[in-house]
């Protein structure tokens, strides 16, 4: 931890970066910290409780400005950063990535490849909560799944916290704000809520890194992160990609294989 604080302080003092996005102690759990000078670097923390996905801030131009900046990134954040690189939302000249590895060593990354190589050693697994709910859902009949999700969807009031929390929802104009035509009704109702979440899942195909930020952000506790997670688990082997470890070219939906499955096509 000390090494991290010292390095951040040094980076800011040298003027190598103008901002470091990291974590500080919050009331219940760590919260984001935006360090702009070396004094505040003393507040920096980095431990297993720091899972909040900081990648959501790196695409915010008003926040990061035009100068080079750094982010202290746990594994979930690293995965999102990789995906953002693929989607041309970040540039290697502008972003320095810091993390602390399993041995407590400070690591610094500049390039996509460096992060990619580091991330490759971490396997993505379901946690206890995900396992519990997903195995329940997997045990359901189709009708039961429909009832379950419709029940959940009736709680959604379209606050779009999920969208704000997701580092990959960086569009300047979201499809729900498109009104010619009005694809998805702006007011909350189970069907339009479902349309929104199906739409979100479809937009995440091959992109979602299963960080869980969307589910975490939901004020009414709908396990929406599991929609994208399950979708990704099911499709990744078939489409031949590893979630959270994107290839630099292409995307699961904008590419295809000659022998993609088609038994469902009559």
């Amino acid at each position, binding site marked *: 931890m000390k090494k991290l604080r010292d390095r951040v302080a040094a980076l800011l003092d040298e003027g190598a970066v103008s901002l470091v996005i990291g974590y500080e102690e919050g009331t219940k759990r760590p919260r984001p910290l935006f360090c702009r000078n070396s004094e505040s670097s003393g507040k920096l923390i980095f431990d297993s409780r720091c899972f909040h996905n900081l990648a959501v801030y790196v695409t915010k131009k008003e926040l990061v400005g035009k100068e080079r900046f750094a982010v202290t990134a746990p594994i979930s954040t690293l995965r999102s950063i990789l995906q953002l690189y693929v989607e041309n939302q970040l540039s290697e000249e502008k972003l320095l990535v810091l993390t602390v590895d399993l041995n407590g060593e400070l690591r610094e990354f500049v390039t996509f490849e460096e992060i990619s190589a580091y991330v490759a050693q971490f396997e993505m697994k379901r946690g206890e909560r995900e396992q519990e709910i997903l195995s329940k*859902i997997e045990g*359901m009949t*189709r*009708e*039961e*799944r*429909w*009832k*379950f*999700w*419709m029940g959940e969807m*009736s709680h959604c009031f379209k606050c779009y916290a999920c969208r704000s929390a997701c580092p990959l929802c960086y569009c300047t104009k979201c*499809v729900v704000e498109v009104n010619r035509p009005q*694809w*998805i*009704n702006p*007011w*909350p*109702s*189970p*069907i*339009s809520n*479902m*349309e929104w*979440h*199906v*739409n979100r*899942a*479809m937009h995440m*195909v091959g992109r979602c890194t299963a960080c869980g930020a969307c589910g975490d952000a939901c004020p009414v506790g709908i396990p929406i992160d599991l*929609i994208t997670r*399950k*979708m990704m688990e*099911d*499709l990744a082997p*078939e*489409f031949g990609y590893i979630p959270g470890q994107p290839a630099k070219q292409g995307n*699961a*939906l*904008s*590419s*295809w294989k*000659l022998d*993609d*499955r*088609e038994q*469902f*096509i*009559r």
Partner: protein
Amino acid sequence: MSSSTEFEPKIIAFVCNWCTYAGADLTGTSRLKYATNVKIVRFPCTGRIDFLLLLKSFAQGADGVIVSGCHPNDCHYTSGNFHARRRWIAFRTVLDLMGVDIRRIQYSWVSAAEGSKWADLVNNTVADIRALGPYAEYQKVAEYLEKEGFDEEA
């Protein structure tokens, strides 16, 4: 002939201009008969068909949907149908997870030469959807809450 009391499903067909639309033209030129339940919407390519259109169709009361384009390697635009195929694999996965009845979406490849296949596809799909019945489960939720507001029921 179907009796008057029999359920007549509403089915929309999303087809590409070059293969299936032309195939359906051939069905006509060949004077093959099929059910009136299906109405065709023309797209340049299956690659153009937005998944949201399928969702909106169900919300607006469709009981079934046909999506059809060129056979693999036959796409007028070389790969639109391959992109579409992949999109439908993903879409089916997501819909199935949500509990949407994906049996109501029939995908097919119908070439410009397969006039009789188009007639069979329509007739079989109409029969399948008729056997499944109206998509009341979806329509109920869609209609009730879309039109009358949200707060009436927990």
